[in-house]
């Protein structure tokens, strides 16, 4: 990323604000065990249904577990799922998109029809269908979210590969005898990075929404793991007695998703100023 892009990004204050929130959540996730006041799984029935106090800044749940500590550890799981699944989706999506765009013809048709079929499953439905096959749990949630995200990456990469492969510098590479793999890895993928970075940032937020949604439905990460969606699901039962058990993870999801979306928008404007105009 060159200086110009960074300068343009920093000019957009809301995106910088979103970036700071994301950094804060990432630091919380990394240093969770150091900053969390209690063990997130430790039950203490004598302490259940406690409100906000100096001992428990976000109160406790029905089992006396500290909500703040669970929220902090939850950041590790939720952000971890989001990063891992988007990483996986990037690898699969970029491979499919590059293959389809670069080779064209039947390969392109076959891959893109498959992508179309995945896109025909609206919203969370595809993730639910995958969980129905694989079963619930942390790893399967990641896989489900990754497969859910693959079509977007594949389509974006394919369209930039199609426009790139007809350019003169790629033709020059081909004329110089460069292999397909070299052209793809050294020239095509690096030149398709801008839209990919923007999409990946936006999808990190969506991944949290989908993973938490699955856990909320009981199909993702299972209790007592403090994943935000699973916490929200538990908080639903305690809405009357301890509303913070639901509000805290819900607000965390909202803030993180909002922040990724602000950063994604900012990156889009910074990487492609023409688009903004």
């Amino acid at each position: 990323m060159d200086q110009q892009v960074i300068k343009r990004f920093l000019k957009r204050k809301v995106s910088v604000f979103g970036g700071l929130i994301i950094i804060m959540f990432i630091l919380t996730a990394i240093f969770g065990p150091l900053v969390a006041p209690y063990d997130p799984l430790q039950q203490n029935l004598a302490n259940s249904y406690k409100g906000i106090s100096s001992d428990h800044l976000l109160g406790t749940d029905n089992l006396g577990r500290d909500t703040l500590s669970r929220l902090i550890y939850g950041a590790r799981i939720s952000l971890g799922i989001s990063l891992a699944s988007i990483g996986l989706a990037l690898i699969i999506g970029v491979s499919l998109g590059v293959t389809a765009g670069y080779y064209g013809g039947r390969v392109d048709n076959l891959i893109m029809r498959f992508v179309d079929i995945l896109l025909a499953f609206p919203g969370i439905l595809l993730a639910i269908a995958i969980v129905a096959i694989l079963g619930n749990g942390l790893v399967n949630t990641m896989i489900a979210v990754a497969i859910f995200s693959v079509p977007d990456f594949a389509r974006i990469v394919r369209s930039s590969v199609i426009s790139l492969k007809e350019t003169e510098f790629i033709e020059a590479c081909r004329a110089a005898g460069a292999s397909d793999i070299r052209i793809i890895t050294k020239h095509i993928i690096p030149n398709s990075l801008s839209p990919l970075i923007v999409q990946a940032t936006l999808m990190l937020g969506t991944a949290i929404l989908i993973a938490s949604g699955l856990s909320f439905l009981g199909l993702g990460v299972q209790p007592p793991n403090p994943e935000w969606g699973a916490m929200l699901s538990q908080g639903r039962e305690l809405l009357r007695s301890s509303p913070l058990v639901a509000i805290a993870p819900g607000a965390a999801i909202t803030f993180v998703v909002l922040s990724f979306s602000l950063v994604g928008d900012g990156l889009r404007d910074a990487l492609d100023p023409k688009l903004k105009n």
Partner: protein
Amino acid sequence: MLRFIINRIFQVIPVLLGITILVFSMLHLIPGDPARTMVGIEASAEQIEQAREELGLNRPLHEQFFSFVGNAIKGDLGESIRTSLPVTEEILNRLPITINIAIGATIFATFFGMLFGIIAAINHNKFGDGLTMVISLLSVSTPSYFLGLLLMLVFSLHLGWLPTIGISTPIHYILPIVTLGAQAMGLIARMTRSGMLDVLRQDYIRTARAKGLPERVVIYIHAFKNALIPVVTVVGLRFGGLLAGTVLVESVFAVPGIGRFMVEAVLIRDYPVVQGTVLVVAVSFVLINLLVDIIYGLLDPRVRYT
């Protein structure tokens, strides 16, 4: 026009076929023996064999697929393992509730989305613009399952104005509809705003103003009508998405619709119900999009030639 419609229908057929193949494959992609997974690890060999028989797993794969497709076309989606009732009947019993919520959410999202979009556009770069855009940004980022709980907390538990769960009276629909429609409302508000801002810069709007037309006429008669075309498409396309979004909202408000039915089926591994509900929602989504495409082509002749 007829050629455009036939073209679109032909484009949809492979997608429908693909969905059917994927939904059919669900049962066969389950790691291990699906029959054993379904009846549980404590089941006897006899029970497993019976489950295999009921699911038709003993037959050759191609035979299973053709019978699945043939039956699905006839409206037969098999029997629920839990209730032994036909899946189609179970879905049809629940579908009206889900459709009502999705339609209600679409109307809510369209009305308030357009309203906020217009307010933002005519107050461009002023307080009204900022406020409506913050509301729309928040509504897009807030997960429906969190918004639902917040609304339930405020309007049901604290104020006591609305019921918490279930769907026995029309009032019960309010919270699920608002929860489901909020996200689409945010998107529609943003689209209406940018559409209106584009249109308001056009020459014919300047002409309308120069003619001395009142601002209200310029905004609502001249500008709004032309800003509407992309919004109509989004509204149509969102409807299909909202149908899937009911999965989460129905779970929040314990609404006995098709979404909750699907989730319960996944939890208890009632695979015929999972396959049936996924198929119905995905096919409906594709068909609704097809319909929107055709209507859009009827409304805007330019679309037909692209």
